[in-house]
């Protein structure tokens, strides 16, 4: 299961002005695994993901994708290796669902060569995976927040990249679709892709991630299997919340003491 490193940060520091958002973080994500990055608000987890996606340039250190420095890859080539589900983005109300999912094929198309049968097959498969095939003709302005998030995820899948970066992918989704989306993400990892997801929900992270990276104030606090990283001590140190560990069918979940008392 331990295949090659797909995306990694090596001793990366990133600053907004004088403020270091990320300080000396090293983190590697491998093909075939699902890595969850968790931590409290403002800990730098989304910044780490954006650095991996090549959207930000580190002040120090290096970001590599499949062994190559991200800084040296043109965006079009990078997009064939790595797909990002951004936390937010524009949603042109008049665009159709099929068109938005089709945008996932952008890096594979050219000015004179668009929507080839191959492209369309990938788009159809992605829509089927996200259970949105019946929405294909609808306009984005007519969709609910949850439907829209699934459409965006389908666009990312259609990109057909070996690395998937998901920034808080379960936002806006109801319970059923949260787990449905995570099921799809895990299935992508099982199929050999590298999936890195920024998550808020510790339970979801425990249930779905092969490994968890716990961040706090711009640093990597712990990294490893969910059971090893998510200890009551680590959670209290990072989140300032006392929790109780409860074993649910082999998976340990953490519930806040204050809620249980």
């Amino acid at each position: 299961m331990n295949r090659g490193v797909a995306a990694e940060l090596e001793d990366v520091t990133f600053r907004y002005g004088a403020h270091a958002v990320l300080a000396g973080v090293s983190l590697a994500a491998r093909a075939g695994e699902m890595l969850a990055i968790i931590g409290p608000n403002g800990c730098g987890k989304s910044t780490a993901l954006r650095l991996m996606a090549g959207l930000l340039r580190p002040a120090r250190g290096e970001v590599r994708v499949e062994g190559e420095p991200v800084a040296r890859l043109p965006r079009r080539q990078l997009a064939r290796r790595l797909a990002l589900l951004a936390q937010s983005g524009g949603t042109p109300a008049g665009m159709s669902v099929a068109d938005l999912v089709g945008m996932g094929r952008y890096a594979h198309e050219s000015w004179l060569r668009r929507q080839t049968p191959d492209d369309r097959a990938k788009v159809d498969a992605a829509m089927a995976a996200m259970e949105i095939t019946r929405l294909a003709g609808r306009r984005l302005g007519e969709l609910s927040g949850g439907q829209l998030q699934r459409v965006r995820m389908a666009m990312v899948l259609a990109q057909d990249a070996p690395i998937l970066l998901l920034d808080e992918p379960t936002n806006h989704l109801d319970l059923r679709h949260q787990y449905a989306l995570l099921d799809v993400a895990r299935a992508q990892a099982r199929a050999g892709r590298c999936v890195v997801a920024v998550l808020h929900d510790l339970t979801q992270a425990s249930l779905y991630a092969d490994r968890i990276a716990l961040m706090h104030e711009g640093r990597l606090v712990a990294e490893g299997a969910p059971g090893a990283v998510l200890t009551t001590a680590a959670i209290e140190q990072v989140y300032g919340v006392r929790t109780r560990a409860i074993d649910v069918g082999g998976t340990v979940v953490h519930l806040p003491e204050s809620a249980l008392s």
Partner: protein
Amino acid sequence: MSGTRYLSAGAHVHLPFALRFLAILALLGLLLAGAMLCGLWLGSTDLPLSRILRWLLPFGPADADTAALMQLRLPRVIVAVLGGAMVAASGYLLQVISGNALADPGLLGISQGTVATILLGGVVFGVPAAWLAPAGLGGGLAVGALVLLLAARLQAVNGLILIGLAVSISLGAVVEIIMVSGGIDQFVRYMSWSHGTLTAASMADAARLAGWALVLAMPLAAAPRAMAPLLLGSAQAASLGAAPHLSRPLLTLLAAALVAPVVAIAGPFAFLGLIAAHTARRLVGDRPGEVLPVTMLTGALLLLAADMAGRTLFLPMVVPAGLLVSVAGVIGFLAVARAVPR
């Protein structure tokens, strides 16, 4: 996806097109052709349509009277069609670039930059009249570039709009100071030009504008593919394989180049881009490759109709087309502002 067909040629050409879009394009094209014929036909001098057709068609010579009258009407029609299309395209480009549905060439300071350069050149520095239009073009492009550079420094989502507005307002103040200190005559003169009028359009102007349109046709054809990812925001666009840090400034430059020659020839046309782009989106949705041409046809129709109305309905006065577009635009703006959420 009903109605989508594919144009295929070998392994390297595979293009989708929507039947609805083609139908709308054809309809607007026909409407525009009809409006252009009306533009040649209508005016304070009555002229039978048959004489215009004889002048237009290459069968036999046209009479001198008709030919002389066409010298007055033809340049107006050409400048209205090209100028309307160019200003509308510029507005739509800016809306996509800024992610703001209310964007307009006035937003980037391009219109004001051209206006201020022409006035500064003419009133303060005594630049000969023949050099005013090129000078204004340079000024509009320079201000557009300045706004872009400042916005890039600011790195904020709405930085472009804020800086564009700030620069526009400052330039507007400069213009007013020049005009007021130049006396009331200068001010009246400025007011009559600042509304955007096609009365002064000559065949030379029409030819110059056509030259610009020709030069800008290729970049315009390439623009929609660069625009589509921008609709999803910078981060998503970049991760899809687009290069927003490059395409934004290039598209803004294109938007400036589209609007500056029109302002130099006919003055600024506020709201034209806004109305045309929103009409186009209503008609075809949100694919830039479809919205852009429909926006341009709509803009051309709009300016042509405004100019025809302005020079036939209020005689002996000829009301500047820009004024009528603005009136239509204010109504459109309010409708759009109500419809846009947030």
